[in-house]
């Protein structure tokens, strides 16, 4: 069989798996539950803003961005982790993987389908947020759009992490690991400060290893800059986005390698 034909076939498979995953995700009731939960938080931020001693718009922006980041985490845990686990438990992947399709195509297809559905969901949440802000006479500044874009990139990293952990272990453990990954990813700066404070070289090397393996999800969090109007360093958004995409790709490559060796 010639190579271009095989590659075309793999592209077809990638598209079909992505499409089917997208279809499956948008039929998932959890998606709507989390979506409406995020919308509710965004709406409530209007009232929280009124009661706050800080500027109302700043509180709204803080709440809105945090709600969307949290929604991304919940979606990647509840939908991302469950998706692969369910495929394995229900054996629906037998029908696909017994065909001339590599397991990495399956993993990437799942990722793209899930990402497309969750990004669509995220865009709708972001539009709602922007509309609410506009009604409150605070049209979105360019930095807010950058913050939203980086939250989207963080969501992609979290979906890749959810898939990675679900190739390794049971859905329950994978959910805990994904949550731990999120918390550790947002605490990575803390590790850096501990490294500076410690003088033991072995301990520092261990912390350095963890620091470089774990992602720094704080790169995607520019809420403070949005709220206080602090300008971002040059090219921050594009560098952070590239970092996120590369990290997600790394996780997916690892997931493919692990999944390729797994007995189904």
């Amino acid at each position, binding site marked *: 069989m010639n190579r271009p034909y095989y590659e075309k076939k793999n592209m077809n498979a990638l598209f079909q798996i992505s499409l089917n995953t997208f279809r499956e995700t948008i039929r998932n009731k959890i998606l709507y539950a989390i979506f409406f939960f995020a919308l509710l938080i965004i709406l409530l931020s209007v009232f929280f803003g009124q009661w706050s001693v800080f500027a109302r718009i700043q509180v709204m922006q803080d709440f809105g961005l945090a709600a969307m980041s949290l929604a991304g985490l919940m979606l990647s845990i509840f939908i991302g982790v469950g998706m692969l686990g369910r495929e394995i438990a229900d054996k629906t992947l037998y*029908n696909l993987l*017994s065909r001339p399709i590599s397991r990495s195509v399956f993993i990437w297809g799942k990722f793209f389908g899930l990402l497309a559905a969750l990004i669509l969901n995220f865009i709708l949440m972001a539009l709602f947020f922007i509309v609410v802000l506009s009604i409150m006479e605070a049209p979105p500044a360019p930095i807010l759009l950058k913050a939203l874009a980086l939250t989207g990139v963080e969501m992609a990293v979290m979906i890749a992490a959810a898939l990675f952990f679900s190739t390794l272990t049971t859905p329950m453990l994978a959910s805990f690991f994904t949550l731990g990954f999120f918390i550790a990813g947002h605490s990575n700066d803390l590790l850096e400060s501990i490294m500076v404070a410690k003088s033991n070289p072995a301990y520092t090397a261990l912390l350095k290893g963890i620091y470089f393996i774990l992602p720094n999800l704080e790169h995607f969090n520019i809420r403070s800059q949005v709220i206080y109007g602090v300008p971002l360093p040059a090219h921050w958004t594009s560098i952070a986005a590239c970092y996120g995409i590369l990290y997600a790709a790394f996780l997916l490559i690892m997931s493919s390698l692990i999944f390729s060796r797994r007995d189904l």
Partner: protein
Amino acid sequence: MNIIEFQHVTKFYRRNFWNSQIAAVQDLSFAITGGTIVGFVGPNGAGKTTSLKMLMGLVRSTSGAIKINGRNALEPQARNGIAFVTEQPYFYSYLSVYESLELIAGMQKTIDRKKAIAQTLEIVELENATKKKVKDLSKGMQQRLNMAAALLVDAECYVFDEPMSGLDPLGRRLFRDIFQNLKNIGKTIFFSTHILDDIESVCERVIVLSSGKLSYEGAVAELLSRGFLGTDIVTTSLPPNLISQLIAFNYEVKSTQDQHADIFIKSGGDVKACQKLLFENGITIESILPRRKSLETMLYSK
């Protein structure tokens, strides 16, 4: 050319971290050539499904090699000319019959997807259920959809894992016809089953597994001839003098309650001489049937 080849394949499973490994398949070697229907038989837990999963790249063997058309079965490209039907139909419950087949057709180079799906649905007699959700189909209908998914691929070899389980007699007949039609156009069929009747009526060759090991491989006809015990001739009632004559020829004679007699001629006995004797005495022969050991006895007895 061998389409499928198992070379000293062994698979060990570990039930959990603390338990020792158990062997599902041990040193299994066989080969399947093109254009034949081969049955894969064995009792529950013999290792049939594990072997088929290893063939389809769903499970990795602990040692040995599995080849499809000379390629390592773990390479996705090796599965290019092979279609697999699982024991249970594993489809996405939220998809319709048509959507399920569209998903599969979309993964391969199908020139006219709609036409291919329509033709396949007609073969498995599901053309009136295209819009039905998979979750609303009966077990038999899901099994037909499973078959349709395999037929959608223009494969050189079709591998079925217990394809007829859950089918009614009509469904079984349909599947047997499909096997025969595939055979007639030169396709290779390799299927596992518990139902030995299917082996006798459909297969040319049989591979028997017992406790993960190969216990027999060969032609079904040869296997059946090995178990040939003799011939039963059923006649109308026999006069006593004729019974004495038949016994003198070393035939076993039994009178049945419905005014019939059953003459048994052991393997190697002269059936024609017996027929001639009956004819000369004006006896009507109602049936002549071979008597043999059941396939179960031949395949599973140690």
